[in-house]
């Protein structure tokens, strides 16, 4: 709840910024059509897109494009109309707060320093050295902020869940849970399998409905996961294989929507042989309702292979 409210606020701030930029652009165009006015309009439109479609910012190519174009637009504005736009010069250090991919921060810093050099050179060497010094100091502060943020990203990649309000775990969590669960099932002599589920109809709303019905259909010990590819997975534990097929049918009937399922038996399986991205691929186009996959290569086999390899080496 709280986080949704904060997301709304950030979208509003972004929207306000884009509206003001477009307003300034319109004002300048009314005074006379110039390159700077057009650049302002482009920047404003870009911010508008970002504020209205926040999800796009999760795509790395889009993010890189936005950051680089912001840097280039700022530098063009400063160099083309310094009497109006020279204050954008201090905006470059802020771009270093988002160093992802890695080369982005040095690129933005380089653009910023070159722009500072060209913008302040006509003012004399005193101003030039002062300006470069202040910009570099601010950039160092910005880079520290960026490094702090990298820790946050590192944690986000290892997060257990994608959605804080729902008991559905992430693929990272699944990969951490699987060795434990498999070892336990083998020791206790019970059946364990991973059910991959995807709705036949495409679309985000259908997937969300599937997630909601799965919440009520699955029991508390049948842990739900959402994989990186977007398909859902349920870890099913029963006393014997015969009961698993019964429970599986019951679960899918309870969903009351068209789904496709793949079943991966896990007993005695080697977790390294499991390829989750491949497993969820084109699941919705499967012809059968339930596809049983062959068991994973067993741990003993893979150990044999490994020892053979050692012998070969």
């Amino acid at each position, binding site marked *: 709840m709280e986080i949704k409210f904060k997301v709304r606020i950030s979208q509003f*701030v972004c929207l*306000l910024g884009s509206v003001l930029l477009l307003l*300034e652009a319109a004002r300048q165009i009314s005074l006379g059509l110039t390159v700077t006015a057009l650049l302002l309009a482009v920047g404003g439109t870009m911010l508008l897109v970002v504020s209205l479609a926040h999800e796009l910012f999760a795509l790395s190519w889009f993010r890189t494009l936005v950051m680089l174009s912001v840097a280039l637009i700022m530098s063009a504005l400063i160099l083309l109309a310094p009497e109006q736009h020279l204050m954008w010069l201090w905006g470059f250090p802020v771009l270093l707060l988002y160093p992802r991919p890695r080369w982005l921060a040095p690129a933005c810093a380089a653009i910023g320093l070159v722009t500072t050099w060209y913008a302040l050179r006509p003012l004399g060497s005193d101003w030039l050295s002062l300006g470069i*010094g202040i910009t570099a100091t601010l950039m160092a502060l910005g880079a520290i902020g960026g490094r702090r943020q990298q820790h946050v990203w590192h944690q986000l990649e290892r997060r257990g869940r994608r959605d804080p309000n729902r008991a559905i*775990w992430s693929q990272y969590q699944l990969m951490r849970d699987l060795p434990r669960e498999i070892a*336990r099932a083998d020791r206790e002599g019970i059946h364990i399998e991973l059910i991959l589920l995807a709705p036949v109809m495409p679309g985000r709303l259908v997937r969300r409905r599937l997630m909601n019905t799965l919440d009520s259909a699955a*029991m508390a*010990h049948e842990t739900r996961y959402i994989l990186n590819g977007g398909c859902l997975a349920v870890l099913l534990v029963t006393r014997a294989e015969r009961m698993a097929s019964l429970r599986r049918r019951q679960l899918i009937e309870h969903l009351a929507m068209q789904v496709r399922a793949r079943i991966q038996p896990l007993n005695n399986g080697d977790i390294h042989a499991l390829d989750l991205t491949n497993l969820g691929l084109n699941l919705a186009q499967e012809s059968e309702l339930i596809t049983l996959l062959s068991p994973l290569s067993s741990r003993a086999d893979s150990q044999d292979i490994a020892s053979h390899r050692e012998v070969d080496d």
Partner: protein
Amino acid sequence: MPFLTALTHTRDHRQLANRKTLIMLLATLVIATYALWRYLVGDFDHILTPVLSTLLMGIATGLNLLDDENPLPSYLTLIASYLMLALEAPGAYPGLSLWLGLPCILTLLLLPLAPAMLLNLVLAPLWLWLLGQQDDNFGEELRYLCLLLVASQPFVINSLQADFMTLTASEETECNAFNASTGRERLTSEAARARALDQPLSILVIYLPQLEMLSEQFGEDRRIECLSTASEVMQDISRLGDLLCRSDKATLWLMLPNTGEAGALIMRERLTAALAATTQPETGSIIARARLVIYKASDTSQKLEQRLLAAQLALMDLNE
């Protein structure tokens, strides 16, 4: 090994704080040079502000070196920079609105997001009046607001991500264990599993009474080290199926599925013995107090959780 990241993280944090101190030291030197230059030129009308700023920056650098969590150095740095900008920049004016964007960016970089935005909005008229151009007033105000909003975007996104991280993380940052909210969810699912498969389930509530004393006497580093060592020892002893989660500052839950009372009691003995055998540099062995809670078939998961919390409180009382 996740518990190693806790130590590297604190080290990383310290390194970044040192770098910030270094930057502040350099800035102090620059302002000091400026003051010296004014003195050498003989311009005594303009010497008070840079000298004052140098003093403030020097104090801020010293304070930052002592305690990097304290916000006071950042505020002192801001005051010094504001002084320089307000009193020096309008006089040394190259005919452009060069300095206008500087105060708001500096504030954003030094302070947390909320106070920075508040300060920027409150001070915006002052900076526009002091540093702005006299003609073309409306356009300049508009551009200033644009800069403020666009520059705040990365900070807004970063603070959102930090919030999201704390909400969705499943592991502790200080030791190799699940965090409390994940632990509760896992407890529910373990109880359901025990019911469905008709298996016993035991949970050990482990309290480490030394942690509080350690952070008071030897600092946070030692406390984290003790906690991560303890959790590592516990992970080593327990089977692959057992779940360790941290429920409180100094309390951990070890869930032992498919383990009856006898097995759990043996486990408790092994655990306390192994922790006692582990030596720490300043405190010697790790003391652990543990209580056993056994899941009954009539228990709902809320009831089980309440019993666990009661056991936790009883352990803490015992210590006092």
